[in-house]
């Protein structure tokens, strides 16, 4: 019993469950996907064959859908870094003012964030319904029949239609982070600048915006990472169609492995996406840790 009185074994015992589950079910698949990307395998039978880089050659040179998915993921990411944070920032600025109902308004704008992405997909699919959906009904009643589209069925607009649903779902998330950032800007500082004769615009630009810089970085990084994860909403709204027009890397990796039975190629796509994510995440984590040390 003496052994258990000291700190180390107790610590080990408390730490072990989290570490084992995390190691086995999060870290191991991440390493395994790299191994699988060098194999030819259908995911079920025992015969795994080492094929070197041929899966990578396959997706990069022979698979046009990979490049469509790559381009769509790039477009989606850029749009996700710009629009939801901008909308969220505008809402946060407005809802940081002394106006009536601001608490229920904040709650309302955040509400789509907590809804299952697959439910958002189903909702918006119905609103985009070409015959009885909300959008075409509104356009018709405004006399804008010319603008009516098959929003999800037309490859030229489908990706953007899905993205609009995503803005509706995610802007509230940025808004909450920006609101917290705005509230952490010292009231004394704002007050002092006012007394010194700064107008509202000068206070905003020279006092509040610089203080918001860490929040802005965090929102942009989280938006980037979340956009690379885009899966549910695309799967639910278009399944990658029409004719791969909304195909994304995460979804294409899933389709290759789980639906076409090519775990090698699917894993190679996953590895490409993982590398892109790491290239963004690692510098960010370094920055965040340095900042944490400085604060302390």
């Amino acid at each position, binding site marked *: 019993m003496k052994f258990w009185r000291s700190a180390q074994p107790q610590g080990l015992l408390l730490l072990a469950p989290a570490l084992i*589950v995390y190691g086995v079910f999060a870290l191991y698949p*991440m390493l395994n996907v790299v191994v699988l990307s060098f194999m030819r395998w259908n995911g079920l039978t025992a015969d795994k064959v080492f094929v070197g880089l041929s899966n990578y050659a396959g997706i990069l040179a022979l698979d046009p859908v990979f490049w469509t998915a790559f381009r769509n993921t790039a477009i989606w990411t850029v749009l996700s870094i710009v629009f939801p944070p901008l909308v969220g920032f505008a809402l946060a600025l407005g809802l940081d003012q002394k106006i009536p109902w601001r608490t229920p308004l904040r709650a309302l704008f955040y509400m789509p964030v907590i809804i299952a992405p697959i439910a958002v997909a189903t909702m*918006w699919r119905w609103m985009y319904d070409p015959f009885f959906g909300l959008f075409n009904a509104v356009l018709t009643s405004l006399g804008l029949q010319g603008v009516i589209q098959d929003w999800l069925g037309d490859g030229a607009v489908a990706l953007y239609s899905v993205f609009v649903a995503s803005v509706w779902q995610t802007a509230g998330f940025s808004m909450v982070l920006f609101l917290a950032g705005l509230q952490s800007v010292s009231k004394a500082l704002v007050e002092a600048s006012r007394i010194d004769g700064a107008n509202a615009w000068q206070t905003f630009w020279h006092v509040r915006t610089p203080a918001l810089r860490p*929040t802005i970085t965090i929102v942009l990084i989280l938006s980037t990472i979340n956009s690379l994860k885009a899966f549910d909403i695309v799967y639910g709204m278009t399944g990658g169609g029409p004719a791969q027009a909304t195909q994304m*890397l995460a979804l294409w990796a899933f389709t290759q492995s789980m639906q076409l039975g090519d775990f090698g190629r699917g894993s190679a796509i996953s590895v490409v996406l993982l590398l892109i994510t790491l290239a963004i995440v690692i510098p960010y984590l370094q920055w965040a840790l340095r900042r944490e040390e400085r604060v302390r």
Partner: protein
Amino acid sequence: MTALANPFRPAGSDRIDPVLVALWLVLIVVAALWIAPFLFIIFTSLKTNSTVMGASAFAPPTNPDWTNYAAAWTRGKFSTTVFNSAVITVVKVPLGLAISAMAAYVLSRIEFRGARAIFLLIVFGTMIPFQVLLAPLFTLVNGFGLINTKLGVILPYLAFGIPYQVFVLHGFFKELPRELSEAALIDGASHFSIFWRIFLPLSLPPLAALLILDFVATWNEFAMALVILQDNSTWTLPLGLMSFQSQFSRDYGQLNAAIVMTVLPATIVYMIFQRYFVSGLTAGAVKE
């Protein structure tokens, strides 16, 4: 809702600012647009198919047809999917928080070689997109023979919930005064009892926030469930809704009733525990 003293007046001023009034009106209009999808879904869920096809899309239902809900409940096998979702959530959420809190306690309070490295390795997990790992997760769970079992989704759910929870709780525990655990240690208490008797009771606010966030995340999860729960008797609510959409997409009233029933639990939880969402999110992301 608390009434706001002196609305529309900027700090230090008694005059109503017309810019703020205009801003407020704009926000109200945007809010109406934001809530429109919800109203449209609820309205449609109360209409018969012929009303949906015959009358204006945004007209409220004049004589609400509640039968859509009962019909969607049966055809969508909601009794099965709600039960599965509830069991998975009720097991996963408290269990995940418990093991995360234990790990966070050790990493913030017991010094040992490699503690920093382990912490970084876990925090790194907050950034791994599991959506990329669906195929290897399937392979792994299949290797354990857990495809189509609740344990088969609970284990990966636990694994991908740990990083953020450990990160937030580690930050919280570190702020608690050192003397708290040191005094107890000198008195002969074990780390188990310090964790259980002192740290857990003190960390109820962040635990509550994480509990709510994790409830919603687990309830809504789709992608992992999609690859692991393949048999329809094991499906969770999001899988059931997806299948309903592909089978009965032309039964507009019922489809929308199914959507309402799927999102209702998370919405109710959100409305009751609203303030915890904000504190749970900002605890991890924004440090003052």
